[in-house]
Protein backbone atom coordinates (compact mmCIF):
# COMPACT_ATOMS: atom_id res chain seq x y z
CA UNK A 1 0.00 0.00 0.00
CA UNK A 2 1.56 3.30 -1.07
CA UNK A 3 1.28 6.09 1.43
CA UNK A 4 1.39 9.72 0.31
CA UNK A 5 4.83 9.98 1.96
CA UNK A 6 6.49 7.27 -0.13
CA UNK A 7 4.57 8.06 -3.33
CA UNK A 8 6.61 11.25 -3.64
CA UNK A 9 9.97 9.45 -3.30
CA UNK A 10 12.08 8.32 -6.24
CA UNK A 11 12.54 4.56 -6.55
CA UNK A 12 15.18 2.36 -8.14
CA UNK A 13 14.14 -0.51 -10.42
CA UNK A 14 14.83 -2.94 -7.54
CA UNK A 15 12.42 -1.29 -5.09
CA UNK A 16 9.86 -4.15 -5.26
CA UNK A 17 12.63 -6.69 -4.57
CA UNK A 18 13.88 -4.81 -1.50
CA UNK A 19 10.36 -4.73 -0.12
CA UNK A 20 9.86 -8.41 -0.95
CA UNK A 21 13.05 -9.19 0.99
CA UNK A 22 11.55 -7.40 3.98
CA UNK A 23 14.05 -4.52 3.98
CA UNK A 24 13.45 -1.64 6.35
CA UNK A 25 13.08 1.31 3.98
CA UNK A 26 14.29 4.86 4.48
CA UNK A 27 14.02 8.20 2.68
CA UNK A 28 17.57 8.96 1.53
CA UNK A 29 17.93 12.23 -0.38
CA UNK A 30 14.44 11.84 -1.81
CA UNK A 31 14.88 8.15 -2.69
CA UNK A 32 12.96 5.23 -1.11
CA UNK A 33 15.94 3.01 -0.30
CA UNK A 34 16.68 -0.10 1.79
CA UNK A 35 18.29 0.80 5.12
CA UNK A 36 18.87 -2.80 6.20
CA UNK A 37 17.69 -6.35 5.46
CA UNK A 38 19.10 -8.75 8.09
CA UNK A 39 20.51 -5.96 10.27
CA UNK A 40 23.28 -3.39 9.93
CA UNK A 41 25.78 -5.32 12.07
CA UNK A 42 25.32 -8.59 10.17
CA UNK A 43 25.54 -6.82 6.80
CA UNK A 44 28.67 -4.90 7.84
CA UNK A 45 30.32 -8.14 8.98
CA UNK A 46 29.40 -9.87 5.73
CA UNK A 47 31.20 -7.20 3.69
CA UNK A 48 34.33 -7.27 5.86
CA UNK A 49 34.58 -11.09 5.89
CA UNK A 50 32.74 -12.40 2.83
CA UNK A 51 30.71 -10.19 0.47
CA UNK A 52 27.73 -7.88 0.33
CA UNK A 53 25.53 -6.70 -2.55
CA UNK A 54 24.24 -3.12 -2.60
CA UNK A 55 21.64 -1.52 -4.86
CA UNK A 56 23.23 1.88 -5.49
CA UNK A 57 21.09 2.76 -8.51
CA UNK A 58 20.07 6.00 -6.83
CA UNK A 59 23.56 7.39 -7.55
CA UNK A 60 23.81 9.78 -10.47
CA UNK A 61 25.77 9.44 -13.69
CA UNK A 62 26.71 12.50 -15.74
CA UNK A 63 28.23 11.88 -19.16
CA UNK A 64 30.46 14.51 -20.74
CA UNK A 65 31.31 14.08 -24.42
CA UNK A 66 32.98 15.83 -27.33
CA UNK A 67 36.31 17.48 -28.09
CA UNK A 68 35.67 19.91 -25.21
CA UNK A 69 35.02 17.13 -22.67
CA UNK A 70 38.44 17.14 -20.99
CA UNK A 71 38.47 20.94 -20.82
CA UNK A 72 35.12 20.97 -19.02
CA UNK A 73 36.06 18.18 -16.61
CA UNK A 74 39.34 19.94 -15.80
CA UNK A 75 37.54 23.19 -15.03
CA UNK A 76 34.90 21.82 -12.66
CA UNK A 77 36.80 18.94 -11.03
CA UNK A 78 39.84 19.48 -8.78
CA UNK A 79 41.74 16.28 -9.61
CA UNK A 80 43.82 16.08 -12.79
CA UNK A 81 41.78 14.23 -15.43
CA UNK A 82 44.58 14.69 -17.98
CA UNK A 83 46.49 12.03 -16.04
CA UNK A 84 43.74 9.41 -16.49
CA UNK A 85 44.32 6.59 -18.94
CA UNK A 86 41.39 5.20 -20.89
CA UNK A 87 39.75 2.71 -18.51
CA UNK A 88 40.95 4.53 -15.41
CA UNK A 89 38.95 6.38 -12.76
CA UNK A 90 39.76 8.70 -9.88
CA UNK A 91 38.09 10.27 -6.87
CA UNK A 92 37.63 14.04 -7.08
CA UNK A 93 35.58 17.04 -6.01
CA UNK A 94 33.25 19.18 -8.04
CA UNK A 95 34.29 22.68 -6.96
CA UNK A 96 32.52 25.97 -6.40
CA UNK A 97 34.32 29.19 -7.28
CA UNK A 98 35.06 29.47 -3.54
CA UNK A 99 37.13 26.26 -3.56
CA UNK A 100 34.45 24.34 -1.68
CA UNK A 101 32.56 21.19 -2.66
CA UNK A 102 29.49 21.07 -4.88
CA UNK A 103 29.85 17.27 -4.57
CA UNK A 104 32.41 14.50 -4.43
CA UNK A 105 32.51 12.05 -7.31
CA UNK A 106 34.35 9.48 -9.36
CA UNK A 107 35.58 10.52 -12.80
CA UNK A 108 35.89 7.69 -15.34
CA UNK A 109 37.78 8.22 -18.62
CA UNK A 110 35.98 6.21 -21.30
CA UNK A 111 37.80 7.86 -24.22
CA UNK A 112 39.57 11.14 -24.98
CA UNK A 113 36.16 12.59 -25.78
CA UNK A 114 34.01 10.80 -23.20
CA UNK A 115 34.00 10.97 -19.40
CA UNK A 116 31.46 9.45 -17.01
CA UNK A 117 31.04 11.09 -13.62
CA UNK A 118 29.41 9.10 -10.83
CA UNK A 119 27.87 11.58 -8.39
CA UNK A 120 25.82 11.46 -5.20
CA UNK A 121 22.14 10.59 -5.45
CA UNK A 122 20.81 13.74 -3.82
CA UNK A 123 23.11 16.05 -5.79
CA UNK A 124 22.74 14.79 -9.34
CA UNK A 125 20.46 17.58 -10.56
CA UNK A 126 22.43 20.48 -8.95
CA UNK A 127 25.68 18.86 -10.18
CA UNK A 128 24.31 18.67 -13.71
CA UNK A 129 23.17 22.32 -13.61
CA UNK A 130 26.56 23.39 -12.25
CA UNK A 131 28.48 21.57 -15.00
CA UNK A 132 26.18 22.93 -17.72
CA UNK A 133 26.60 26.45 -16.35
CA UNK A 134 30.37 26.23 -16.76
CA UNK A 135 30.33 24.52 -20.14
CA UNK A 136 32.16 27.09 -22.23
CA UNK A 137 33.81 24.17 -24.06
CA UNK A 138 30.81 23.20 -26.16
CA UNK A 139 30.92 19.71 -24.64
CA UNK A 140 27.76 17.59 -24.58
CA UNK A 141 26.59 17.11 -21.01
CA UNK A 142 23.97 14.48 -20.22
CA UNK A 143 22.22 13.84 -16.90
CA UNK A 144 22.26 10.09 -17.48
CA UNK A 145 21.05 8.86 -14.06
CA UNK A 146 17.65 7.71 -15.34
CA UNK A 147 19.21 5.34 -17.88
CA UNK A 148 21.65 3.73 -15.44
CA UNK A 149 21.25 1.21 -12.68
CA UNK A 150 24.20 0.39 -10.45
CA UNK A 151 25.07 -2.48 -8.15
CA UNK A 152 28.07 -2.69 -5.83
CA UNK A 153 29.48 -6.05 -4.82
CA UNK A 154 32.03 -5.57 -2.05
CA UNK A 155 34.16 -7.79 0.17
CA UNK A 156 37.09 -10.24 0.02
CA UNK A 157 34.96 -12.75 -1.91
CA UNK A 158 33.38 -10.23 -4.28
CA UNK A 159 35.80 -10.91 -7.14
CA UNK A 160 35.38 -14.68 -6.93
CA UNK A 161 31.58 -14.33 -6.90
CA UNK A 162 31.44 -11.87 -9.81
CA UNK A 163 33.99 -13.90 -11.82
CA UNK A 164 31.52 -16.76 -12.07
CA UNK A 165 29.14 -14.49 -14.02
CA UNK A 166 31.52 -12.73 -16.44
CA UNK A 167 33.99 -13.71 -19.19
CA UNK A 168 36.07 -10.64 -18.29
CA UNK A 169 39.26 -11.62 -16.40
CA UNK A 170 38.63 -9.57 -13.26
CA UNK A 171 42.24 -9.90 -12.11
CA UNK A 172 43.19 -7.70 -15.06
CA UNK A 173 41.01 -4.83 -13.79
CA UNK A 174 43.24 -3.07 -11.32
CA UNK A 175 41.98 -0.95 -8.47
CA UNK A 176 40.31 2.24 -9.76
CA UNK A 177 40.20 0.92 -13.31
CA UNK A 178 37.21 -0.25 -15.31
CA UNK A 179 36.21 -2.01 -18.48
CA UNK A 180 33.10 -2.77 -20.54
CA UNK A 181 31.97 -6.38 -20.55
CA UNK A 182 29.12 -8.75 -19.91
CA UNK A 183 27.85 -9.84 -16.52
CA UNK A 184 25.21 -12.55 -16.79
CA UNK A 185 24.96 -11.72 -20.48
CA UNK A 186 24.17 -8.05 -19.70
CA UNK A 187 26.43 -5.28 -21.06
CA UNK A 188 27.99 -3.43 -18.13
CA UNK A 189 30.64 -0.96 -17.20
CA UNK A 190 32.60 -2.97 -14.60
CA UNK A 191 34.69 -0.81 -12.25
CA UNK A 192 36.98 -1.91 -9.46
CA UNK A 193 35.81 0.83 -7.13
CA UNK A 194 33.73 1.03 -3.97
CA UNK A 195 32.74 2.91 -0.84
CA UNK A 196 33.45 0.27 1.80
CA UNK A 197 37.22 -0.02 2.17
CA UNK A 198 37.11 -3.59 0.82
CA UNK A 199 38.00 -4.98 -2.60
CA UNK A 200 35.02 -5.07 -4.89
CA UNK A 201 33.28 -3.87 -8.00
CA UNK A 202 30.63 -1.38 -9.02
CA UNK A 203 28.73 -2.31 -12.15
CA UNK A 204 26.65 0.07 -14.26
CA UNK A 205 23.97 -1.14 -16.69
CA UNK A 206 20.58 -0.45 -18.17
CA UNK A 207 17.72 -0.33 -15.60
CA UNK A 208 15.52 -3.00 -17.21
CA UNK A 209 18.28 -5.57 -16.46
CA UNK A 210 18.26 -4.78 -12.73
CA UNK A 211 16.18 -7.70 -11.48
CA UNK A 212 18.10 -10.24 -13.58
CA UNK A 213 21.51 -9.01 -12.42
CA UNK A 214 20.45 -8.77 -8.77
CA UNK A 215 18.95 -12.27 -8.88
CA UNK A 216 21.95 -13.85 -10.63
CA UNK A 217 24.43 -12.17 -8.30
CA UNK A 218 22.46 -13.17 -5.19
CA UNK A 219 22.34 -16.76 -6.43
CA UNK A 220 26.07 -16.79 -7.26
CA UNK A 221 26.95 -15.22 -3.92
CA UNK A 222 24.70 -17.38 -1.73
CA UNK A 223 27.13 -20.27 -1.20
CA UNK A 224 29.88 -17.78 -0.27
CA UNK A 225 27.64 -16.19 2.35
CA UNK A 226 27.02 -12.93 0.45
CA UNK A 227 24.22 -10.82 1.94
CA UNK A 228 22.09 -8.03 0.51
CA UNK A 229 23.24 -4.81 2.23
CA UNK A 230 21.50 -1.49 2.73
CA UNK A 231 22.43 2.12 3.32
CA UNK A 232 22.91 1.54 7.05
CA UNK A 233 25.86 -0.79 6.46
CA UNK A 234 27.04 1.39 3.55
CA UNK A 235 27.43 4.17 6.09
CA UNK A 236 29.10 2.17 8.87
CA UNK A 237 31.53 0.67 6.34
CA UNK A 238 32.59 3.98 4.79
CA UNK A 239 32.91 5.62 8.22
CA UNK A 240 35.11 2.79 9.48
CA UNK A 241 37.22 3.18 6.32
CA UNK A 242 37.56 6.92 7.02
CA UNK A 243 35.75 7.99 3.85
CA UNK A 244 33.91 11.29 3.57
CA UNK A 245 30.17 11.67 3.07
CA UNK A 246 28.82 14.76 1.32
CA UNK A 247 26.72 16.82 3.67
CA UNK A 248 28.80 15.61 6.62
CA UNK A 249 32.61 15.87 6.19
CA UNK A 250 32.40 17.88 2.97
CA UNK A 251 29.94 20.45 1.68
CA UNK A 252 29.90 23.88 0.11
CA UNK A 253 31.65 25.38 3.16
CA UNK A 254 34.65 23.02 3.26
CA UNK A 255 37.79 22.93 1.11
CA UNK A 256 39.80 19.84 0.14
CA UNK A 257 42.70 21.01 2.34
CA UNK A 258 40.49 21.19 5.44
CA UNK A 259 38.97 17.78 4.71
CA UNK A 260 42.33 16.04 4.37
CA UNK A 261 41.66 15.60 0.66
CA UNK A 262 44.67 17.53 -0.63
CA UNK A 263 45.64 14.39 -2.51
CA UNK A 264 42.76 14.86 -4.97
CA UNK A 265 43.43 18.56 -5.42
CA UNK A 266 45.97 19.06 -8.19
CA UNK A 267 47.17 22.63 -8.15
CA UNK A 268 49.78 21.94 -10.84
CA UNK A 269 47.16 21.78 -13.57
CA UNK A 270 45.73 24.89 -15.22
CA UNK A 271 43.46 27.03 -13.02
CA UNK A 272 40.13 25.42 -12.19
CA UNK A 273 36.99 26.64 -10.40
CA UNK A 274 38.10 27.81 -6.98
CA UNK A 275 41.82 27.10 -7.47
CA UNK A 276 42.72 30.72 -6.74
CA UNK A 277 40.93 30.57 -3.38
CA UNK A 278 42.58 27.21 -2.64
CA UNK A 279 46.03 28.61 -3.44
CA UNK A 280 45.37 31.51 -1.06
CA UNK A 281 44.16 29.18 1.69
CA UNK A 282 47.33 27.16 1.33
CA UNK A 283 49.41 30.32 1.71
CA UNK A 284 47.36 31.59 4.69
CA UNK A 285 47.29 28.25 6.48
CA UNK A 286 44.22 26.30 7.55
CA UNK A 287 42.03 27.39 10.43
CA UNK A 288 40.47 23.94 10.87
CA UNK A 289 41.18 20.35 9.95
CA UNK A 290 39.16 17.15 9.77
CA UNK A 291 40.23 14.55 12.32
CA UNK A 292 39.19 11.05 13.30
CA UNK A 293 38.46 10.23 16.93
CA UNK A 294 37.71 7.24 19.08
CA UNK A 295 35.44 7.25 22.15
CA UNK A 296 37.27 5.98 25.22
CA UNK A 297 34.25 4.45 26.92
CA UNK A 298 31.00 2.91 25.70
CA UNK A 299 28.88 5.96 24.98
CA UNK A 300 28.54 6.99 21.34
CA UNK A 301 29.42 10.42 19.93
CA UNK A 302 27.01 10.95 17.06
CA UNK A 303 26.50 13.32 14.11
CA UNK A 304 26.09 16.89 15.26
CA UNK A 305 27.27 16.38 18.86
CA UNK A 306 29.56 19.15 20.18
CA UNK A 307 33.33 18.67 20.39
CA UNK A 308 35.04 20.36 23.34
CA UNK A 309 38.70 21.05 23.96
CA UNK A 310 39.80 22.73 27.15
CA UNK A 311 36.16 23.09 28.15
CA UNK A 312 35.31 25.13 25.05
CA UNK A 313 33.14 24.00 22.13
CA UNK A 314 35.39 23.98 19.05
CA UNK A 315 33.29 22.09 16.51
CA UNK A 316 30.70 19.39 15.89
CA UNK A 317 30.91 15.71 15.03
CA UNK A 318 30.43 15.35 11.26
CA UNK A 319 29.81 11.60 11.38
CA UNK A 320 29.88 9.38 14.46
CA UNK A 321 28.75 5.94 15.46
CA UNK A 322 29.75 2.34 16.10
CA UNK A 323 32.60 0.75 14.12
CA UNK A 324 31.27 -2.82 14.07
CA UNK A 325 34.40 -4.56 12.78
CA UNK A 326 36.83 -2.66 15.00
CA UNK A 327 34.45 -2.93 17.95
CA UNK A 328 34.85 0.70 18.98
CA UNK A 329 32.85 3.89 18.65
CA UNK A 330 34.39 6.36 16.22
CA UNK A 331 33.74 9.62 14.48
CA UNK A 332 35.10 12.53 12.51
CA UNK A 333 35.01 16.22 13.30
CA UNK A 334 36.58 19.52 12.34
CA UNK A 335 38.84 20.97 15.03
CA UNK A 336 40.99 24.10 15.06
CA UNK A 337 44.27 23.27 13.30
CA UNK A 338 46.36 23.71 16.42
CA UNK A 339 44.54 20.79 18.10
CA UNK A 340 44.63 18.25 15.28
CA UNK A 341 47.53 16.06 16.48
CA UNK A 342 46.91 12.34 16.83
CA UNK A 343 46.69 11.52 20.52
CA UNK A 344 44.99 14.79 21.49
CA UNK A 345 42.35 14.30 24.18
CA UNK A 346 38.97 15.77 23.30
CA UNK A 347 35.52 15.65 24.83
CA UNK A 348 32.26 14.88 23.01
CA UNK A 349 29.10 16.33 24.56
CA UNK A 350 26.56 13.51 24.73
CA UNK A 351 23.13 14.66 25.85
CA UNK A 352 24.56 17.20 28.27
CA UNK A 353 27.43 15.08 29.60
CA UNK A 354 31.05 15.27 28.44
CA UNK A 355 32.55 11.96 27.33
CA UNK A 356 36.27 11.41 26.77
CA UNK A 357 37.57 10.73 23.28
CA UNK A 358 40.97 10.84 21.59
CA UNK A 359 42.11 11.88 18.12
CA UNK A 360 43.36 8.91 16.09
CA UNK A 361 44.91 8.57 12.63
CA UNK A 362 42.68 8.10 9.60
CA UNK A 363 41.62 5.74 8.24
CA UNK A 364 40.33 3.81 11.23
CA UNK A 365 40.30 0.59 9.19
CA UNK A 366 42.50 -0.50 6.31
CA UNK A 367 41.89 -3.83 4.64
CA UNK A 368 44.66 -6.43 4.77
CA UNK A 369 46.69 -6.16 1.53
Amino acid at each position, binding site marked *: *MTTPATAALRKTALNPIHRQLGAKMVNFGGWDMPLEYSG*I*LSEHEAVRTRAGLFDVSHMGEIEIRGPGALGLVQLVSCNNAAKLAIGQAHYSGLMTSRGTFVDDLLVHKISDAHYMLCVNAGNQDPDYEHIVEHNKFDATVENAGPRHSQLAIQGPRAKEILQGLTPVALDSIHYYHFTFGQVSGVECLIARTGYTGEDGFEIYFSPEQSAKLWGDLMQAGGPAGMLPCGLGARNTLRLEAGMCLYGHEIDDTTTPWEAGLGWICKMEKAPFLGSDVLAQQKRDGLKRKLVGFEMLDKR*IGRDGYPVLIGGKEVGRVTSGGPAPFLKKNIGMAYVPSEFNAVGTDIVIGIRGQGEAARIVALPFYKRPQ
Partner: protein
Amino acid sequence: MYPKDYRYTKEHEWIKVDGANGTIGITDYAQHELGDVVFVEMPKVGTQLKTREPFGTIESVKAVSEIFSPVAGEVIETNSALADAPELINKDPHGGAWLIKVRLADPKEAAALMDAAAYETYIAGKAKEHSA
Protein backbone atom coordinates in the same frame (compact mmCIF):
# COMPACT_ATOMS: atom_id res chain seq x y z
CA MET B 1 4.19 -13.56 20.76
CA TYR B 2 3.10 -10.97 23.31
CA PRO B 3 2.88 -12.53 26.80
CA LYS B 4 -0.69 -12.45 28.08
CA ASP B 5 0.28 -11.54 31.64
CA TYR B 6 2.21 -8.41 30.59
CA ARG B 7 0.78 -4.93 30.12
CA TYR B 8 1.89 -2.61 27.32
CA THR B 9 2.27 1.09 26.56
CA LYS B 10 1.88 3.07 23.34
CA GLU B 11 5.63 3.75 23.53
CA HIS B 12 6.25 0.00 23.30
CA GLU B 13 7.33 -0.78 26.84
CA TRP B 14 5.99 -3.81 28.70
CA ILE B 15 5.53 -4.38 32.42
CA LYS B 16 5.06 -7.65 34.29
CA VAL B 17 3.54 -7.11 37.69
CA ASP B 18 4.52 -9.44 40.53
CA GLY B 19 2.70 -8.33 43.67
CA ALA B 20 4.36 -5.15 44.86
CA ASN B 21 7.03 -5.15 42.16
CA GLY B 22 7.17 -4.89 38.39
CA THR B 23 9.66 -5.89 35.69
CA ILE B 24 9.93 -3.52 32.71
CA GLY B 25 11.31 -3.95 29.22
CA ILE B 26 10.68 -2.98 25.59
CA THR B 27 8.59 -5.02 23.19
CA ASP B 28 9.57 -7.09 20.19
CA TYR B 29 7.96 -4.44 17.98
CA ALA B 30 10.23 -1.81 19.53
CA GLN B 31 13.44 -3.83 19.10
CA HIS B 32 12.55 -4.50 15.48
CA GLU B 33 11.97 -0.79 14.84
CA LEU B 34 15.26 0.10 16.53
CA GLY B 35 17.47 -2.36 14.67
CA ASP B 36 20.68 -3.71 16.17
CA VAL B 37 21.05 -2.42 19.74
CA VAL B 38 24.60 -1.38 20.60
CA PHE B 39 24.29 0.37 23.98
CA VAL B 40 21.82 0.70 26.84
CA GLU B 41 21.85 3.43 29.47
CA MET B 42 19.93 2.71 32.65
CA PRO B 43 18.99 4.58 35.82
CA LYS B 44 20.70 3.98 39.15
CA VAL B 45 19.10 1.72 41.73
CA GLY B 46 17.08 3.91 44.06
CA THR B 47 15.90 6.31 41.32
CA GLN B 48 12.29 7.40 41.79
CA LEU B 49 10.37 7.17 38.52
CA LYS B 50 7.18 8.99 37.56
CA THR B 51 4.68 7.55 35.09
CA ARG B 52 5.70 8.23 31.47
CA GLU B 53 8.97 9.81 32.59
CA PRO B 54 12.05 8.81 30.53
CA PHE B 55 14.35 6.57 32.57
CA GLY B 56 17.08 5.64 30.14
CA THR B 57 18.10 5.29 26.52
CA ILE B 58 18.53 2.42 24.12
CA GLU B 59 20.97 3.11 21.32
CA SER B 60 20.88 1.31 18.01
CA VAL B 61 23.46 1.74 15.26
CA LYS B 62 21.57 4.67 13.80
CA ALA B 63 19.62 6.24 16.63
CA VAL B 64 19.10 6.99 20.32
CA SER B 65 15.68 6.20 21.78
CA GLU B 66 14.37 7.19 25.18
CA ILE B 67 12.57 4.62 27.31
CA PHE B 68 9.55 5.78 29.28
CA SER B 69 8.36 4.27 32.54
CA PRO B 70 4.90 2.68 32.29
CA VAL B 71 4.34 3.28 36.02
CA ALA B 72 5.53 5.24 39.05
CA GLY B 73 7.94 3.44 41.33
CA GLU B 74 11.47 3.02 42.66
CA VAL B 75 14.21 1.24 40.70
CA ILE B 76 15.33 -1.78 42.74
CA GLU B 77 17.40 -3.65 40.12
CA THR B 78 18.84 -3.13 36.63
CA ASN B 79 19.81 -5.88 34.18
CA SER B 80 23.60 -6.07 34.29
CA ALA B 81 23.73 -8.55 31.35
CA LEU B 82 22.93 -5.70 28.98
CA ALA B 83 26.19 -3.82 29.59
CA ASP B 84 28.25 -6.45 27.78
CA ALA B 85 25.53 -7.90 25.57
CA PRO B 86 23.16 -5.13 24.43
CA GLU B 87 22.16 -7.33 21.48
CA LEU B 88 20.13 -9.42 23.95
CA ILE B 89 17.43 -6.77 23.53
CA ASN B 90 17.05 -7.82 19.89
CA LYS B 91 17.21 -11.54 20.72
CA ASP B 92 15.03 -11.81 23.83
CA PRO B 93 13.16 -8.54 24.44
CA HIS B 94 10.38 -10.07 26.55
CA GLY B 95 12.55 -12.31 28.72
CA GLY B 96 16.29 -12.19 29.28
CA ALA B 97 16.57 -8.56 28.13
CA TRP B 98 14.32 -7.04 30.83
CA LEU B 99 15.65 -3.59 31.65
CA ILE B 100 14.71 -2.72 35.25
CA LYS B 101 12.73 -3.96 38.21
CA VAL B 102 10.73 -1.46 40.24
CA ARG B 103 8.89 -1.32 43.55
CA LEU B 104 5.48 -0.07 42.39
CA ALA B 105 4.09 3.11 43.90
CA ASP B 106 0.62 1.70 43.13
CA PRO B 107 0.40 -2.05 42.38
CA LYS B 108 -2.92 -1.49 40.55
CA GLU B 109 -1.58 1.21 38.17
CA ALA B 110 -0.45 -1.19 35.44
CA ALA B 111 -3.91 -2.78 35.10
CA ALA B 112 -5.06 0.33 33.22
CA LEU B 113 -2.48 -0.25 30.46
CA MET B 114 -3.18 -2.20 27.24
CA ASP B 115 -3.31 -5.97 27.51
CA ALA B 116 -1.64 -8.22 24.91
CA ALA B 117 -4.67 -8.29 22.59
CA ALA B 118 -5.07 -4.51 22.66
CA TYR B 119 -1.33 -4.04 22.06
CA GLU B 120 -1.36 -6.44 19.11
CA THR B 121 -4.26 -4.51 17.58
CA TYR B 122 -2.40 -1.26 18.21
CA ILE B 123 0.80 -2.38 16.44
CA ALA B 124 -1.14 -3.98 13.57
CA GLY B 125 -2.53 -0.49 12.94
CA LYS B 126 0.97 0.97 12.99
CA ALA B 127 2.24 -1.67 10.55
CA LYS B 128 -0.46 -0.64 8.06
CA GLU B 129 0.68 2.98 8.36
CA HIS B 130 4.30 2.01 7.69
CA SER B 131 4.03 -0.41 4.80
CA ALA B 132 3.99 1.18 1.40
